[in-house]
């Protein structure tokens, strides 16, 4: 079992590395297939100036050489220089933005997991009753709303109409609304996952056995049911990170959070190629790592699962 598990982890790890390499290659070659020079929109239009700029950023060498250089640099954590925020390296900008986005994302993920698991379990335990129906109704609604709809609705209701919470992130308590709007979609998703997996577990023989042995209700729920129903929620960790990262591009713009998502959108609109490449690769590494960890933890939690 142990050696089998190890083989699985190594295999899964190699797969993750391959995926990251593919993302880097796709990112690099797609960005380099663009016909326009990244400097063609600059004010300095003379060919000599553009050539000098291209030489400075290394764009004058053959693509294959550039790619290998780029790979080498990434391994040192060097994503190159931003072509639009002159004087800043991409790594600096990413680090600056990520400190905000990480707080926002972790807060949203924690809120989503705690609320989602609790609500899902409560709904499953009260199957068919009013609580269950309300939970189902609300979560169905929430998973049908794009992040920008959730965020702007919260902004209108709590920020503008009721005036309870600040609408800008730099005000005290300003992170509450962005965190909340980012967490609602994954929260609803986890609730639905947890509900159906809990219902599945509650119908299992070992739950009946535990009850027949006279185990207290609370213990049955917490020790037997809840623990075993967590599997599908764990596998959702990877997609959840992806959805939170995507959502943060919208939410950070709406609430003016100076995070990675807003940085990414701005660099897309300004066509800052080095930034786009850097952020894409950074986010992809984050998502792939989370997927890898989620799969390993899932396998640890439930060794019966054959993931290969």
């Amino acid at each position, binding site marked *: 079992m142990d050696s089998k598990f190890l083989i699985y982890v190594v295999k899964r790890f190699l797969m993750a590395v391959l995926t990251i390499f593919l*993302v880097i290659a*796709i990112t690099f070659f797609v960005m380099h297939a663009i016909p326009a020079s990244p400097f063609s929109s600059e004010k300095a239009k003379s060919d000599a100036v553009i050539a000098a700029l291209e030489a400075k950023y290394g764009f004058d060498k053959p693509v294959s050489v550039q790619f290998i250089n780029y790979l080498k640099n990434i391994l040192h954590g060097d994503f190159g220089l931003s072509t639009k925020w002159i004087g800043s390296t991409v790594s600096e900008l990413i680090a600056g933005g990520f400190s905000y986005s990480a707080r926002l994302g972790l807060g949203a993920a924690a809120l989503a997991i705690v609320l989602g698991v609790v609500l899902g379990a409560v709904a499953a335990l009260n199957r068919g009753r009013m609580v269950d129906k309300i939970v189902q109704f609300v979560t169905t*609604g929430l998973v049908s709303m794009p992040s920008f709809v959730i965020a702007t609705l919260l902004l*209108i209701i709590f920020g503008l109409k009721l005036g309870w919470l600040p609408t800008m992130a730099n005000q005290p308590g300003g992170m509450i609304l962005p965190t909340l709007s980012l967490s609602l979609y994954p929260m609803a998703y986890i609730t639905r996952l947890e509900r159906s997996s809990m219902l599945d577990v509650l119908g299992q023989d070992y739950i009946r056995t535990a009850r027949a042995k006279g185990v207290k209700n609370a213990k049955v729920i917490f020790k037997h049911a809840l623990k075993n129903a967590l599997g599908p929620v764990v596998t959702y960790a990877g997609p959840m990170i992806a959805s939170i990262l995507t959502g943060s*591009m919208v939410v950070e713009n709406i609430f003016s959070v100076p995070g990675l998502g807003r940085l990414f959108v701005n660099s897309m609109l300004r066509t800052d190629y080095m930034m786009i490449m850097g952020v894409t690769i950074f986010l992809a590494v984050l998502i792939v790592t989370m997927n890898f960890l989620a799969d390993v933890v899932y396998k640890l939690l439930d060794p019966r699962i054959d993931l290969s």
Partner: protein
Amino acid sequence: MDTVKPKKNPFSLQLDPELFKPASDEEKAQVVTQRESVSFMRDAMRRLVHNRMAMVCLVILVVITLIAIIVPMIYPYTYTQQDVTAKYLRPFQYSAKEQARIAAGQKVFPHIMGTDNLGRDYAIRVIYGTRISLMVGFISALIVVIIGILYGAISGYFGGRVDLIMMRIVDIIYSLPDVLIVILLSVAIKDFISTSKNDLIVRLGAGMISIFIVFGLLYWVGMARQVRGQILSIKEQEYVMASKAAGASAMYIIFKHMIPNCISVIIITAAMQIPSAIFTESFLSFVGMGVSIPMPSLGSLASDARSGLTSYPYMLLFPALTIFLIVLSFNLLGNGLRDAFDPKLRS
């Protein structure tokens, strides 16, 4: 009981010869009417029709689709038509110029949802945005269905090494972060489009085209996996073996036996795909990577509405509610389809 029974004999089966007479036509008819034979498709449709929630959603979607197709043909305003004297009108409000025309006895079509910052009729813009959303949803589902079925069927049917290699490719594609790739491609394609002369491409916009490309490249893997799994179990069935023994070709078996038997999986997966395509498009348009101006999309309308949020919140609510209604209906219809086509899954 005056029929002659055979003599009682300890070794006889003591059967009544009456029971072995041919059935009369009347009796035959009785058996036929007792139970009509129902095909799988009709059975599933019957279950779907009885699901009230799913039917309501279906009706909503049909109505929205019809509005999106028909209204732009007969509507008196277009989505580009600007009127500087009619900026920021509230729903059913008329500008001074329009009021003068009404006073002069002319008929003026009301702005059902008001007008925007350039005096364009908002209702027709929302309808065009809906059109874009639905188009993205349906075309993406179509792409996913075609590629996913072919790939999954080939992989599942041939099995062995072919299956192994094809599924490895699926695994790799599956682990790529799709939204990032969509964004990346739309950045690149936007650049190509700005130099393109083709009218259709320019009108569709970078976001739309990159969504279609990415769905063609990435999103079909879910469908391919589902179809392959289904094919693997169908392959073991006796009727496939019978068909093979009778000399049927691989293509014949795939298209005649296997794909029809995968239909429930295909329908369910395709229905679930549509909301995610609509989400992606609206997200891209919201951050400014979607359809090109002046073509509206529900995402870009919502994004534009943010600037006047305090004074004109309804400008956000109209596109937001529309997209909510569309995605909600697709989600609930998808649940209904799953229940109808896959009764085993129902809890």
